[in-house]
């Protein structure tokens, strides 16, 4: 029984928890399947609602990781538990060979996060087929590149559509849940597009606008009032490509009860959260349960939301469901505090 901790997942939650746990004097190893830590945040340009740089938040979190052992490019292939000790086997992903290695720890923190919904699955939206249909994440890549947002034909998009709830609240793709942050992301991105191209028209197609947190509703108001972003209440039913590469949308304007047809030069799909592909394997190794939505269940969603139900295994972040950056940081801190308390109590018990 020692004071070593393994964190699986090097996104914002995993890194935040790692920073707190090394502060507590614990021996922390962070395992990340990608070659870089940072998770989805590393891809994002600016954050809602205040549009600060994502890199600033990332830098803040990374600053606390000096004493953390970070192992990237590894996939967890097995976890076993003996008394209070965990043994984790991993495989290093390498084109030529795969190297296996082992880690042991007294406690585990799962922070495996989420994947973005694969937009291709909404076939009728034509992602991957129509040149000018992109996802919100693609848009962030383009924002980040700083090169401006152009259509595939190289033109400034005169009219832009943003489609909310792509892969969320949609029985047809098997996801009944709301991904929570896409609404405000859509509003944020609409403002950013208007800021970049004031003469362009920007339309958000939404079912409900769930402005759940502080300053979000104000951002929505600002988008309408200051930036002239239009909001059309109606889910995109299908789209098609015009000869010039523009996209023709079909939706209902539910506020007037009439179908609506509109051509846009660029269509952005606000893709939601789905459980990360590797999470279910890890859950299987530990006997953890997921909900029907595929996200991991905590021991109690109100009172023990960071406990997995398996002693020594803790949960942080978006593997439990859609969550914002601020919430992920708070949740990771809470998980870290709980995990540190567990280590102390079990160490004392064993000593």
């Amino acid at each position, binding site marked *: 029984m020692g004071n070593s901790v393994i964190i699986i997942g090097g996104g914002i939650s995993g890194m935040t928890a790692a920073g707190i746990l090394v502060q507590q004097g614990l021996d922390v190893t962070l395992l990340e399947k990608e070659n870089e830590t940072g998770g989805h945040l590393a891809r994002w340009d600016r954050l809602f609602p205040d549009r600060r740089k994502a890199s600033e938040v990332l830098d803040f979190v990374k600053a606390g990781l000096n004493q953390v052992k970070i192992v990237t490019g590894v996939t967890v292939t097995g976890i076993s538990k003996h008394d209070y000790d965990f043994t984790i086997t991993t495989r290093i992903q390498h084109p030529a060979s795969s190297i296996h290695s082992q880690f042991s720890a007294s406690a585990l923190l799962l922070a495996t996060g989420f994947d973005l919904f694969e937009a291709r699955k909404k076939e009728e939206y034509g992602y991957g087929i129509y040149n000018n249909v992109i996802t919100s994440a693609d848009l962030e890549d383009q924002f980040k590149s700083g090169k401006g947002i152009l259509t595939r034909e190289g033109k400034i998009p005169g009219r832009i559509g943003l489609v909310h709830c792509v892969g969320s609240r949609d029985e047809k793709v098997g996801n009944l849940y709301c991904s929570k942050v896409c609404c405000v992301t859509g509003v944020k991105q609409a403002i950013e597009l208007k800021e970049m191209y004031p003469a362009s028209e920007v339309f958000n197609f939404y079912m409900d*606008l769930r402005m759940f947190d502080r300053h979000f509703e104000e951002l929505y*108001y600002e988008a*309408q*009032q200051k930036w*002239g972003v*239009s*909001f059309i*209440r109606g889910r995109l039913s299908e789209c098609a490509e015009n000869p010039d590469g523009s996209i023709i949308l*079909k939706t209902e*304007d539910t*506020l*007037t009860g*009439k*179908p*609506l*047809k*509109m*051509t846009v030069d660029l269509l952005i799909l606000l893709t939601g959260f789905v459980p990360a592909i590797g999470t279910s394997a890890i859950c299987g190794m530990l006997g953890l349960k997921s909900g029907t939505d595929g996200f991991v269940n905590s021991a109690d969603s109100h009172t023990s939301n960071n406990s997995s139900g398996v002693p020594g295994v803790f949960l942080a972040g978006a593997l439990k469901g859609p969550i914002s950056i601020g919430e992920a940081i708070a949740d990771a801190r809470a998980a870290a505090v709980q995990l540190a308390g567990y280590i102390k109590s079990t160490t004392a018990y064993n000593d």
Partner: protein
Amino acid sequence: MIDFGYTLTKDRQFDYDHGDFRFLRLVRSIEPSLDVCIGCGSCTATCSASQFTNFNIRKLHTVIRRGDPESIKAELKKCMFCGKCQLVCPRGVNLRNLILAMNRAIEQLG
């Protein structure tokens, strides 16, 4: 032309690409607050004229925003201008002036 006993029908949908946005431009220049509507419907719910008719002020300015202002011409006449709609609007849309602006648009644009 042959009479087949049936004819081509006009599409019911809003064709945004061929919409008439002259009304929107004029109305917006007079009363920009229409842009902050969130479609809650409290205006129509409190409206006296809506109790007697299918007058729906929310829909009227929504169809303008969709580029299909034709239907407002007959409808707008029913407004009694009492201002309750404006008083209940959670977004502060200046509905009375919006109605004046729509009237102006009808006058100027036919």
